[in-house]
């Protein structure tokens, strides 16, 4: 396992949206999940997570709700809004275009 790499600029929003698309999650779980799914390659900086969550909430792409966790503590759970779902589609599309383009350059040139 190499050193955890920083996120590609501008992809944090996409990752967050995608992560909570399945089920509502709190901040710690979001960071954890991204780390796990990416095989520990993507390390979400805590420093950028909370500002990003607030930004997304402000954009009305996600909404937050205080709920009890399995352990009985209160935590803030984030879930996607309809606008957020649309935004996720847009970001996915834009990401696949970008990654395809990068692939093309990397493989063919």
């Amino acid at each position, binding site marked *: 396992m190499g050193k955890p790499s920083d996120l590609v600029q501008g992809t944090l929003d996409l990752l967050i949206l995608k992560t909570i698309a399945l089920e509502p999650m709190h901040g710690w779980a979001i*960071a954890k999940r991204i780390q796990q799914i990416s095989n520990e390659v993507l390390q979400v900086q805590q420093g950028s997570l*909370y*500002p990003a969550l607030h930004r997304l909430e402000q954009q009305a792409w996600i909404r937050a709700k205080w709920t009890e966790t399995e352990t009985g503590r209160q935590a803030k759970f984030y879930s996607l809004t309809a606008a957020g779902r649309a935004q996720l589609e847009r970001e996915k599309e834009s990401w696949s275009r970008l990654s395809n383009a990068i692939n093309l350059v990397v493989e063919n040139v």
Partner: protein
Amino acid sequence: MRWIQRLRMAMLMLFRRSSETARLDQEMQFHLDQQIAENIAAGMAADQARSAALRTFGNPTLLHDQARSTWSWSWLEKFTRDVRYGARTLVRSPGFAIVAVLVMALGIGATTSLFTIVRAVLLKPLPFHDPNNLVMVYEHFHDNQLGDGFNVVAPGDFRDWRAHTNGYQDMAAWREYGFNLAGEHAELPEVVKAAGGSWNLFPLLGIQMAHGRSFTPEEDQVGANHVVLLTWNIFQRRFAGDASIVGKQVRLDSNPYTVIGVLPASFTYPDSKTQVWVPYAQTLTARQYDAHDNHQSLVIARLKPGVTATSALAQVSALQYQLHLANASKPVAESAVSRPMIDDVVLDIKTPLTVLFCAVGCMLLIACLNVSNLFVARSAARRKEIAVRGALGGTRLTLIRELMTESLLICTAGGVLGLAISALTTRWLATHWDALPRAEVVRMDVPVLAFSMGLVVLTALLAGLLPAISATGKMAFGVLQESSRSVGGSTSRATMRKTLLAVEIALTVILLFSAALLFKSFMHLRTTDLGCVTDRVLTIKYGLPENQYNTREKVVAFHESLLEKVRRLPGVTSAALVSTPPGGGYEGDDVFTIPEHPPAASVLQDDAIYRSADPEYFKVMQIPLISGRVFTDQERLTRDHYLVVSKKLADQYFSSDNPIGRHIRVSWDTPEPENYEIIGVVGDTVYDVAQPIKPTMYFPILSGLPNQVSSATIMVRTAGDPLLVSVPVQKQVAALDPSLPVYDVLTMQQILGKTTASQSFSATLTLAFALLSLLLAAIGLYGVLSYLISQRITEIGIRVALGAQRSQVLRLILLDGLRPVFLGLLIGLAGGAVVGTLIRSILFGTSPYDPVVFAAMIVSLLLTAVAACAIPALRALKIDPMQALRTE
């Protein structure tokens, strides 16, 4: 509806900030706890797990701030913090804050007031339908002395223009008129200002009557049934706003007129004093109605869409040339001229108003410079504080922002106070400024508020930016290394203060200079020699309705018995009649020829003002008889065709020979021109203080000349206060005819005051602004010097200790203060000369380069400057060298 949710979020963050902050803490704490729990599960010891979690998490406070900064209100938080900080620092120096706020309030208040008036009077469209297409068409006036100009139109010309040109959708005419309105139900009779308007005038302007209807074409005929429209003013004032007046009759000049309609309140053209409108043709005789040489109407035309004012006018001009050729013996203009209607309405006020607006703008700029200067002084006093904050990591931008917030606070407070001042002064100006047209539309509204808010921001920038930049400059941070003895770091700032001061002085000089010119010009008007002796003279006007006083005998009998009774009143030394008193206006003129002279080759015709007077008039007013004689008692009653001319007329037309016994041929309303023999030459009198003297002809007032008998002014010379006889004279009129209203009961001094009211108003206002500016400049000067001296206490102390004389110290300080004054004075004088040239058109009898004005202004400025310098200079003299050195 995403934006609703976004707004909700924003509001939530704004109003429940503390609870949201707590929740953010809670959320982060939860995150940390989870991490710690995981670390423990991985086998770490409790405290190790905790520090590891914190390490990966980062600085919670910073994260907290970063999260919060995504809320859109962070700028507001910062701003509130700055404002609180600014307010605290301002409260710590209340003297400075109060002076600065007052200075800004004066500047912003005065500018807002003038802007309100300028906007309403000069910039708001006229309250008519599609006002941009309305023009006034005039006959082209040419006179060898007065040059080119706009002449009022003859009814015949107007009707031909309307019938035979097609550049205008329509043309309408109106003329001023006056009536005696009879008193009914114990009301007093009154003289009402009236206007005669052609039937199409109101449709042309797009005016809907508030009640009733407008004129019909049939009513707009000479001799048609009398109908009248009431303006809103008289409808409310005299008829209590009772709409049932429509259809009823009122008596004007003893004739019954049927009220057919009421004009809306918004209609105040040509001015708010006009009370009734009658059909145009009903104010004219049949001959006048057809005449091409009876110039007394104004013509309003509406341009056809797509036709330019120039091409529409070209057609009228071409037609006018034909009319000129067809009436070669009469004074018919060769061409026509036009201008937009709005220009016409605001003609007389445009220049004075612009001058005033520039004056307050100048004053505002001076106020800004002053506050700016105060800020520089303060920031100098706070050098150390600023330097420490800079050293502790305050970025330059943050420091500038904070200093700017202070200036914004001052200007906002000044703006609020200024708006209050302006609300009061605007109202006052609109009601007391007689010469102001369209005063009824002057009000403070949203654009005005926006304007003053803009002013606040602008002034805050002007006053705050320069000091803030200079206070936070690189040099400023060096202060920490300076020993207190050194003043090196402040040299550049002292230079800037002096520069600001010089600019301020220059602006003050320009303002003072213009004000002094206007004031001198106004004083010149007030002391104009009217050509007669004006003290202790009362004038009273009255008019005799033509249908009651329909024979010459009746008219003469009335005038005669009134004069006789008035002369016998106690306190009256003499009395006489004249059609219009000196300084009382133009009233009328006529063209004439001189039969003894060869016919003039020029197309220009000679014209002179006419006056009617009885023989006593010249004696009562002490107008000197230069040669010949005035009328005898017999001649005034008969039509012997004698006349008296003024010196100006004699000089101009009979320069080489004796005018006595020569003739003047006038045409009046008579079919054939009549010859009048000149029997005397009298001294010149002035008809309008702002105008050059015109040649004048005097006819006997009782000789029955048309237009000369129905109204008269009785001139009463008294032994004591002329106003004391005003009631007795009015009682004599009422005793002769109780239905007769008198009006314009004025002393000659009041007539002069009335005709110079407009000039007096703008001169006084400009002078007030200039004096305020002088005061501001003095405050600025005092502030700068006090500061400079406080900076140099040690230096002065050392100088004195080393044996400097008091006079040397004094000279040092005064020179320091007066150098920027001299510089500003020089720049200001150059600027003043330019401004003087610009306002030349509103000056009377004063050259823009008047040396007295120059001298007076320089002296007053220097006196103020010396006074402002004296206090700090004297303080410097008192410096005890030992004390100064010990403070080191």
